[in-house]
């Protein structure tokens, strides 16, 4: 291979098309476009929800009508017209499969293209997969194994029907309906999502995972995830996304709520690879997500995310450290290319005594993209001996992209210890030279450096996911990882 420079890499990055763009033709039963009270009622009815749930949605819709879209984020895009979206779409043959053989073959083909083989995963990885295809769960596996432990892992619509007491108690307790514009919208129209309950003292024996897909043209996807870890329990939850190529912008406004009761631990990992738009910056998914967890006494919540997709990302997985001695962690890699824009980070709200939080955020920008870290560390007056460590590093490739850091630190307690560090740099020429000198070509050298740069976060991903995360990084930074 002739001399491969950073410029070549850049060119390659720019021209690398989205590999996983395709469209599956499954007859969907889609609602007319637009949003009003009737649509909210219709969604609720369609999902055979109880009266209280319908009321809850309508309440959220009432709040939403009063709200305006937030504009403070460091992203610029054409605002979606909320009356131009269809708020419900479900695969037509709403089946309840017992085995994987019953699944629509076309759907299976979709997953095969993504490299996700259900049965293979079932056997080899031991991962229970709750697949969300256009808003409705179509397959849930390993339910029985989990059932024996008393673990509930199902779609949220099923949970509303079968475990109303749990859902009613916890839904909206971490992210209230009126929390923000997109959370309110989600609360009103959420179509489906996952629900997970780990009973007292149970250690979930396997990684729980969900694959999200946006499939139907012009369909907004509004996922709602609720994970409850009861006292002393442990769960590791994985979430991964890819989306097909589509020219018109698609909206994704999800809400994830985590509740870690006393001594519980939740590990929530995300690999996000929604369609980022083509290299002219046309199309792509708008990803406006509200993710938040609450920690009771001695509890721990750990967020890990790998963000490589979406045209616009607006996402701040947060921890409310309410109980004494609770721990919050946030590990993130955000890679942006072409015209992608990401404004992501976390909030660590320290309320209890001896609470600890760690923030490690890595940003890689290439092409014309803009990558921002926005984080809040707040120490309330009663949070004695709170401890925080934050580190935000950015890597820039080329001078058409930007990296930004907006950390907010608010401290009202004298015993707090806060450290924040941020750096921005490019790949050092001396580092590349060092590798070249030892017979490693430039491409490999860049790969090594980017890999090393992200390692701190990649290491936090569970085994099964780390492989996929590397794969996804490849799409954004082709040839540089490996």
């Amino acid at each position, binding site marked *: 291979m002739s001399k491969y420079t950073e410029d070549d890499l850049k060119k390659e990055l720019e021209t690398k098309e989205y590999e996983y763009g395709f469209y599956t033709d499954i007859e969907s039963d889609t609602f007319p476009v637009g949003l009003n009270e009737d649509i909210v009622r219709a969604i609720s009815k369609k999902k055979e929800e109880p009266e209280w749930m319908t009321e809850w949605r309508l309440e959220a819709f009432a709040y939403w009508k009063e709200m305006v879209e937030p504009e403070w984020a460091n992203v610029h895009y054409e605002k979606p017209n909320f009356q131009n979206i269809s708020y419900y779409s479900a695969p037509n043959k709403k089946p309840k499969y017992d085995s994987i053989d019953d699944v629509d073959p076309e759907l299976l083909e979709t997953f095969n293209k993504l490299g996700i083989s259900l049965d293979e995963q079932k056997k080899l990885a031991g991962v229970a997969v709750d697949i969300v295809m256009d808003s409705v769960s179509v397959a849930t596996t390993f339910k029985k194994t989990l059932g024996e432990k008393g673990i509930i892992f199902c779609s949220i619509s099923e949970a509303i029907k079968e475990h109303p007491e749990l859902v009613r108690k916890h839904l909206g307790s971490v992210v209230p309906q009126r929390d923000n514009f997109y959370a309110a919208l989600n609360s009103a129209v959420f179509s489906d999502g996952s629900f997970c309950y780990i009973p007292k003292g149970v250690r979930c024996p396997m990684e729980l995972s969900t694959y999200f897909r946006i499939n139907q043209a012009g369909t907004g996807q509004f996922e709602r995830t609720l994970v409850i870890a009861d006292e002393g329990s442990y769960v590791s939850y994985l979430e991964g996304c890819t989306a097909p190529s589509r020219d018109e912008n698609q909206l994704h406004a999800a809400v994830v709520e985590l509740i870690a009761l006393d001594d519980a631990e939740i590990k929530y990992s995300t690999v996000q690879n929604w369609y980022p738009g083509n290299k002219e910056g046309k199309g792509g998914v708008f990803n406006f997500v509200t993710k938040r967890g609450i920690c009771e006494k001695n509890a721990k919540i750990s967020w890990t995310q790998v963000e490589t997709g979406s045209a616009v990302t607006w996402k701040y997985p947060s921890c409310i450290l309410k109980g004494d001695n609770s721990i919050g962690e946030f590990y993130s890699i955000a890679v942006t290319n072409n015209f992608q824009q990401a404004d992501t980070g976390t909030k660590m709200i320290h309320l209890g005594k001896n609470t600890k939080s760690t923030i490690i955020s890595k940003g890689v920008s290439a092409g014309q993209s803009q990558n921002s870290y926005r984080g809040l560390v707040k120490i309330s007056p009663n949070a004695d001996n709170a401890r925080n460590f934050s580190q935000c590093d950015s890597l*820039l490739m080329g*001078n058409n992209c930007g990296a*930004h850091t907006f950390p907010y630190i*608010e401290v009202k307690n004298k015993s*707090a210890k*806060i450290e*924040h560090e*941020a750096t921005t740099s490019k790949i050092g020429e001396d580092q590349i030279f060092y590798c070249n000198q030892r017979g490693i070509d430039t491409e490999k050298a860049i790969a090594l450096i980017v890999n090393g740069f992200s390692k701190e976060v990649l290491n936090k991903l569970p085994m099964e996911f780390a492989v996929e995360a590397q794969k996804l990084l490849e799409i954004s930074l082709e040839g540089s990882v490996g």
Partner: protein
Amino acid sequence: MSLKEKIVSSYIAFEDHLEDDSPIHELRNEAIKTFETNGFPTKKEEAWKYTSLNSLLKNDYSILPRKADHTIEFKDVKQYFLHDIDTYKIVFIDGVYSSFLSETTHDAVDVCLLSSALSKSKYKSVIEAYFNKAAKQDSLTSLNTAFAKEGAYIHIPKHKEVEKPIEIINFSTGNEAAILLQPRNLIVVGENAHVQIIERHQNLSNNEVLTNSVTEIFAEKRAFVDYYKIQTDNKSASLIDNTFLSQERDSNCNVHTFSFGGKLTRNNLNFFQNGEHCESTLKGITILEDKQHVDHNTLVHHIAPNCESHQDYKGIFDERSTGVFNGKIVVEKDAQKIDAFQQNNNILISDKATINSKPQLEIFADDVKCSHGCTIGQLDEDALFYMRSRGIGTKEARALLMYAFANNVLESVKIPELKRRINKLIADKIGVSLGFEL
């Protein structure tokens, strides 16, 4: 009538008194319009998220300066000057120039008044070239521009090294129950010229004072500017300080801010690096108690390549005080090879004290080295114990640690007399004198 309305209506009266041929007449009219549209900033604005002006705006300030009936005796205010060394002095009492206390010059360098620079034709070209050229057109700066009439005018020609420091001191006497002061300083430092300037605001009574000051500093090629802000006002005075530095290539500008006094202090410190190889240093020590509030809002805008900037702000916060640090580094696309560093360290002494820190980086160039660090912590218990076990009292041990904490900033003060003074101010503020100098 709200303060804003009062200001806007006073403007008409103010304009009437001015001579018509003032070269900045139109600037003023535009500026008052900007202020009228935007009003005083509120907490809803991102840049003012942690600082509210509401408590200041309810006072009935007198807006136009009047000649004071009685002058102050030099012996009463001697302590506020660097009286041990020879300096140029530009002194204002309640916004009016005091020739008695001042010591200005036109010998080779111009150290005089903005009012005379505005009215005399020989300064016209300088005013046209520089006045209001670096200042941002935000609401408070515009308010100052609209009423800009008096302040320091310093022009150092090419290759001139000013042999003694220049002091700019603003006194307020309490003649009025509440007064709004709006000094406007213009400082032009020519090619290869050197200057040291010390700026101070001092309220001599317990009446309310709100100062909305704007200072523009232009550093031409290879110019060297050393600027010190001493903020030791009493607790009935509030200060909004807007400073803009525009740097040309190879220039070196340092601004030190020592915030120990005042009720509410807001420092908007802006650096614009227009040429290559500029160096900028922003340092500050903040020591607060009671309900004091100090907000440092810094901006370093790297427009040209191969420049450096260093920021180092230290804060010690006691009782119910609030400290805000909002530092921003912007690196433009063409500004490659930038080395920008920003550090903010804070110590909280009391449970009621608050720190809000927001260090920001906005980087559009790839070949840069930018970093920031922010820490919030306490005095090291082990170090305290170590000293106490060797017979140093708790109070002294704590003071020693605080001195050490602030020393990084203090040691770069280049005027020995000033350094000695600041040392004393710190000793007074923390109530312990170490008996030696660091």
